[in-house]
């Protein structure tokens, strides 16, 4: 089986494309009637879904894998553990699952990229959902020690109250594009024309 497309995507850091590439390849190989499951990179496939936050597809993929393969590939089980923690919304547990396994080099690249992305997503969630949060909880959500977490958020503009061990969130003002381009005038003309007739 030719996995060069998958390997290229991994090498070029196009992690968001992994799930689509693997899906398409799996359908193609299955249609040819070739028994593929023993050699299939399920762990990478699963992590590809997790990377794009499609836990549903990751779950369905896990369900479709035969039990014998699950038993013989501990890395696959470890990859699913991450998905499981995401599914049950055990935000801190995700980091434990990431760190709790000695990943093979190829998988490690993907896991590391996901870990970074996940931390970023968690930070954005905290920023939008909390006005104040304890250092302890923030550390859990960000998967860092309390000291590292404090430094991380201070760099992003938050303030800390050491006595109460509380962090105050500062939201960055996101400027959204509001300029219109002339093409919209053409569209408006079309709408009025349509309404008149």
């Amino acid at each position, binding site marked *: 089986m030719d996995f060069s497309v998958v390997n290229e995507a991994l090498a070029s850091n196009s992690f968001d494309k992994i799930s689509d590439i693997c899906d398409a390849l799996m359908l193609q190989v299955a249609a040819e009637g070739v028994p593929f499951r023993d050699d299939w990179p399920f762990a990478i496939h699963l992590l590809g879904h997790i990377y794009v936050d499609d836990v549903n597809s990751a779950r*369905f993929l896990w369900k479709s894998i035969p039990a014998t393969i699950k038993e013989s590939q501990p890395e696959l089980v470890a990859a699913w553990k991450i998905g499981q923690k995401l599914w049950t919304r055990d935000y801190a547990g995700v980091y434990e699952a990431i760190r709790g396994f000695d990943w093979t080099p190829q998988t490690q690249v993907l896991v590391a990229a996901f870990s970074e992305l996940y931390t970023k997503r968690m930070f954005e969630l905290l920023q939008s959902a909390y006005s104040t949060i304890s250092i302890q909880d923030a550390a859990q959500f960000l998967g860092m020690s309390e000291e590292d977490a404090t430094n991380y958020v201070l760099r992003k503009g938050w303030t800390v109250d050491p006595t109460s061990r509380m962090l105050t969130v500062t939201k960055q003002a996101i400027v959204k*594009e509001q300029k219109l381009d002339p093409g919209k005038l053409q569209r408006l003309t079309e709408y009025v024309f349509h309404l008149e007739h």
Partner: protein
Amino acid sequence: MEGLVTQIQGLSGTASDVLSLQNLLKQADDSLHAESTRLPPFLDQLDPSKHSLGYLYFLEACTAGPVTREQASSFVLTIARFISSCVAEQIRLAPDKFISVCKRFKDQVLLLEEPLRGVAPMLTAIRKLQLSSEHLTALHPEFLLLCLLSKCYKTALSILEEDIFEVDQPRDLFLYCYYGGMISIGQKQFRKALELLHNVVTAPMSTVNAIAVEAFKKYILVSLIHHGQFPTNLPKYASSGAQRNLKTLCQPYVELASSYSNGKIADLEMYVEANKDKFESDNNLGLVKQAVSSMYKRNIQRLTQTYLTLSLQDIANRVQLNSPKEAEMHVLQMIKDGEIYATINQKDGMVRFLEDPEQYKTCEMIERIDSSIQRLMTVSKKLNVMDELMSCDPLYLAKAGRERQRFDFDDFDNVPQRYNI
């Protein structure tokens, strides 16, 4: 047989040749079926990418009879290769045969317990058979069934996103929307699921069918999950049979919906526990559980209508959660999913509910509104075309002529019953 093979090889070049070939094949069809066991070796003499029509006739005759498991394996491969290499224009001349072959392909793939094998070929088959992406073929529900059985939900979504305007057979639409609803539920796209299931329960039907009944059960549950309520009556355009009968046929679900509307989680959970077996035998227990947990969300959302700020402890009490921490996690999840606008203040243990910050001024929002307007304009144009066609339909005119009001002397002229053009 050999003569027929030579003719196929000779007449597959131009479009007009293929049409004459089609006549020959139609005449030979019965003898092909009679000799079905002798046909497989002849398939090797034909090239599916050039002699698609002839190959199709032979293939259809070969696969017409009962097939053993050993034969299934080789047929599945042959049919998959045929589907990928055949010429669309040729197979569209014999759509019924193509559909039969593809349906048998699905049966054999299921016999081998390998639904995944059939997904890609069935998708290719749909693309070759359909006249446009707005055309629903008999193969669409087969494709969705294979996706459901092989758990390829994401692949199915690409087909479900296409708008359908033309349907060959009503049964195809029922099954397509029902399976489509199940796939959307699996991917947690409840708005899409509701749309599809709505189509099944409101579709014209002279008598209520089993697909509509099962769809209605899921429709009630998805309605509770997505909207937090279930409308007691179907819209007026649903068939009278559906309006009268569906609720009585889905009694446990209707009662679940009314229990839900009372807002008390404990009562709802008790009802579910008491009727667990019924829900389980319908394969709906998972969905029922999702409906129950959506009630916490619903109750929290209701709080935003009354309060500006509320303590986490208060939320936990009102919504019947076990602790302020649980309430915090629920609110956090709702903020993440965009179901609520709020900020949590851990220092004071309070939640402040906010207004929707959307100002509808950004370019992104304008693009969204734009594309919605474009879609509406397309639908509007299509409706105009359909309206015009229907205004010329003799059956419609006859009925309208009989039923219209007569005010004027001229109105007493009869509407012509038949047009001789």
